[in-house]
C-alpha cells in the first residue's frame, strides 16, 4: 500500500463477519477479507426470490458476504476454473431485491461498486444490521483476482452464464475495500456528494444559459423546446 493509505485506518476481517466486527466498522476504513464470499446479482436474486428455487447452499452456515460481481473467468478443460480478474458491478440496481435477500440469507455485508442511496441504507441496511463495502478504483481487478485462493463452487453456470452465475470463492487478504456505509447508515459517498453539491452552483457561474431546451432533460412531455 502507498503512503496515502497509511493515513487511513486499516482492518482485516474474517468471514462470516461477526456482529462485533460489523459494529466496529467506520466509514472510510480500508478493509481486507479472509474466508468465504459468494456472488449474487439479478440472475441469482430472480431465481431464489421470484422463481422460488431452492438456494444451492445454506447461507447462514456458509458466509454473510454478498459480492456484486461478475468475474473474468474461464473453465479449463479439466473442469477447474481460471479466474483472472475480479471487479464489482454497480449495486444500486439491485436494491429492490435486498430486503428479502437480507431476511432469507442472513447476509450482513454487501460488497460492490457505487454504494446505495441514503434511503436504501435507512430502509434496507440499517434494519438488517448490514454494512456496505465498496471495491476501490473502480477496477482493482488484478489485486482482487490475486486475493482469490480457490473457487469452492459455481452454481447455475450453464443457465446463467459466467457473469450471472453464483460463485463461491475462498479469499485471502482480499482487498483493498473501503467501508462505504456503517451499521448506522452513515455513507462515505453521501457525505462526499453533499460537499460537492454545495459548490455546484459556483462551477456554472458566468456561463450563459442554454440556447434551447432539449429533449431528455425534462419528464414533462408537454414542455416545449423553445
Amino acid at each position, binding site marked *: 500500500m502507498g503512503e496515502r493509505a497509511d493515513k487511513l485506518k486499516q482492518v482485516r476481517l474474517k468471514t462470516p463477519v461477526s456482529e462485533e466486527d460489523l459494529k466496529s466498522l467506520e466509514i472510510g476504513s480500508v478493509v481486507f477479507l479472509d474466508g468465504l464470499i459468494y456472488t449474487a446479482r439479478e440472475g441469482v436474486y430472480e431465481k431464489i426470490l421470484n422463481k422460488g428455487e431452492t438456494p444451492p447452499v445454506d447461507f447462514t452456515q456458509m458466509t454473510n458476504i454478498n459480492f456484486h460481481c461478475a468475474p473474468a473467468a474461464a473453465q479449463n478443460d479439466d473442469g477447474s476454473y481460471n479466474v483472472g480478474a475480479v*471487479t464489482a458491478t454497480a449495486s444500486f440496481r439491485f436494491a429492490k431485491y435486498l430486503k428479502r435477500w437480507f431476511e432469507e440469507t442472513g447476509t450482513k455485508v454487501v460488497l460492490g461498486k457505487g454504494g446505495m442511496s441514503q434511503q436504501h441504507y435507512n430502509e434496507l441496511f440499517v434494519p438488517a444490521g448490514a454494512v456496505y463495502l465498496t471495491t476501490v478504483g473502480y477496477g482493482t481487478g488484478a489485486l482482487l483476482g490475486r486475493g482469490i485462493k480457490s473457487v469452492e463452487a459455481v452454481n447455475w453456470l450453464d443457465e446463467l452464464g*459466467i457473469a450471472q452465475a453464483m460463485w463461491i470463492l475462498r479469499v485471502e487478504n482480499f482487498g483493498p475495500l473501503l467501508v462505504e456505509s456503517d451499521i448506522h447508515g452513515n455513507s462515505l459517498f453521501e457525505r462526499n456528494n453533499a460537499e460537492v453539491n454545495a459548490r455546484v452552483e459556483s462551477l456554472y457561474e458566468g456561463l450563459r444559459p442554454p*440556447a434551447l431546451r432539449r429533449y431528455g432533460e425534462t419528464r414533462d412531455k408537454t414542455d416545449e423546446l423553445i
Partner: protein
Amino acid sequence: MIKADAIEQAANQIMSNAAIDIPEDYESGIRDMINIEKGDLSAFVLEAMLENWQAARDDRRPMCADSGLPRYYVKAGNNAQIEGGFVELEHRVRRATAQATHDIPLRPNRVHPISRQDNNNNVGMNAPEIEYSFEPDVDWLDITTVHKGGLFGTDYRMLFPGDGIDGIKRFFLDVLLAFGKRGLACQPAIVGVGLGGSKDTSMVLGKQAACLRPVGSRHPDPEIASLEDELKKLGNKTGLGAMGFQGTSTVVDCQIEVGYTHTGGMPMSVHCFCLSSRRATARLHANGEVAYRTDPKWFTPYMRRNTVGWDGGAALAGAAE
C-alpha cells in the same frame, strides 16, 4: 502481402496487451495527478490503481474484470495487400476475439440486447465493431483494439451555435457531475469530446478521441488545443476526485476532435475512458515484421484534412501530433 495468420496472431497479442498492460501515457498521467491530489481518499484510490496495474503486469492477468466491449480500429495503408482481403481480416479478428476471451480470460460481456443470450466469446451480431481508416503512400496495416466499459460516463447533446463555448463547458460539466459522483465514470478519465459532424459522427469522433489519443497529445489546431487545456482544468474543479471522493482527480486529459457540422447546429458528445484505459496497437508490415505499441496514431493529418484533395499534409506540417 500481409498474411492472414499474422493478422490473427497480432490480434490475439493486442487483446492480451490491452487487457493486461496499462498504457504508459495513462499511468504517468495518473502519477502526476497523485502528486497534486490533496484528498487522501482520492489519492489512496489512485495508489491502489498503481498497485493493481503492477499486479496485472506481474501475474499477466487482466487489470479489470469488466473487460469492456473489445472492439477494433483498422488503419490500412493505401498500398497494403491483405491475404484473403478484408473479409478474411474480419474473420481472423473475430476468431482472435473468441480465442483471447477464453485464454486471457476476458469476461464474455457481449449478449443479445433483449434475450441476453451470450455466445461466451465476445462475438455476436455486429460485434466486435471494426472501424476503418486509410493512410496514403504506405503499405502497412495498423490494428488497434480498445476495451472500454460501456455503462456510465458517456452522453450526447445537440447544442446550437448560440450556445458557444459556454454551452460546451456547461455540457462538459453536466456529464462529469452526473457520472463522476460515486466514481461511476471510473475517473480519472481521458475525457474525449466529439464536436460537430452529424449526431452519429459526433459520437464516433468523441469516442475515438477518448480511446485513440494518448494523454498529453494536443489537437493540431491551436484553438482546439487550448480548449482541451481549458476543459481539462475545468473538469478538475468540480471537487470530485477518484471514486467521487473530495479531490481534483477527474480528468487526466481532455481530447477533442472536430468535424464540420450543420450550419444550424453544434452536436457534442463526451466520453470517459476509465482507470483501465485499455488500448493496444500492432503494425503489420508486408515483409512479416510486426511492431507493438500503445499509441494508436489514429488521427493522422490525412484524417483531419480540411481540403478537397490531399496535398501531403503540408498545411499541417509541424503540428503537435
